[in-house]
């Protein structure tokens, strides 16, 4: 139990510092144009990584499973201009049904 409480306390502090570091150290100052250009592309880079890791990784394994099928169905629905929430619901339903099989 001590390990749990210690872990929670340290991670809470670390998380606070990680999130605050950039905003506190950089302040509100304007960044150079090259830096802004890199930051602009952080959006697609980070989102891609979150999608890939969230969809295909299970610890250190890469796998294509019911979850991946669900995300693919949602993605297809987005491309067909289905609104966001119904498309995601369709993806979740796909994964749930595949797991019933």
């Amino acid at each position, binding site marked *: 139990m001590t390990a749990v409480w210690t872990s929670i306390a340290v991670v809470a502090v670390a998380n606070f510092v990680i999130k605050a570091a950039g905003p506190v150290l950089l302040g509100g100052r304007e960044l150079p144009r090259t830096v802004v250009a890199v930051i602009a592309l952080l959006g697609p880079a*980070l*989102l891609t990584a979150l999608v890939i890791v969230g969809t295909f990784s299970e610890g250190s394994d890469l796998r294509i499973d019911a979850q991946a099928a669900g995300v693919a169905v949602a993605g297809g629905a987005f491309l067909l201009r289905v609104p966001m929430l119904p498309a995601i619901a369709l993806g979740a339903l796909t994964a749930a049904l595949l797991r019933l099989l």
Partner: protein
Amino acid sequence: MTPSRTSFRTGLRAGTAIAPAVFLIAVSFGVLARDLGWGIVAPIVASVVVFSGSAQFALAEVLEAGGTAFAAILAAILVNARFAVMGVAVASVFRGGPVRRALEAQTTVDASWALANQGGGRFDRELLMGATLPQYVAWVGGTVVGVFAGDVISDPDALGLDVVFPAFFLYLLLDEVRRGPDYVAAALIAAAIALVLVPFTPPGIPIIAACAGALIALRRREP
């Protein structure tokens, strides 16, 4: 209504739309932590003070596997290191002195950061905060429900809920890559880096390393 209040409301609406998924994932965290013998108070405190699904699940999984507190803490910090990069990106929107900026920065979570991203390196402060508020309520509330009444929804995956966040990020990504070829290139490089690293590095590292895809911006702008 002032533009900032409109932004805040837009954020609130977007955050409320994903709150049910956040709630159910938090329920699953509450159930897992209770099963691991964390008791009732510790999981709830964790959600209140850490407020990060990725870090909390990392903690729980390492401790469950018999890892030391040090190993669990390291895993949680690695999976959340991406917030350092995201923090640099949003840094200019926060206001006030160091303490206030540090506190405002705590509203940075994945979904809100992505929603507040206006393209071209600009972010909307009120939208970020508005989107985070309902997620925080859902996260803490879901944990409480999971700890006390976890048996009802013991397996969120059976409902396909693990699809929600990757699909949501994919939706936002499709918006991003429409902005231009550089955006597509950054996404493709990031995908390659993440896929190559997943089998060889601890969780969290592939996501941070994939941010290097954004450096493609330097290629054309160098004189």
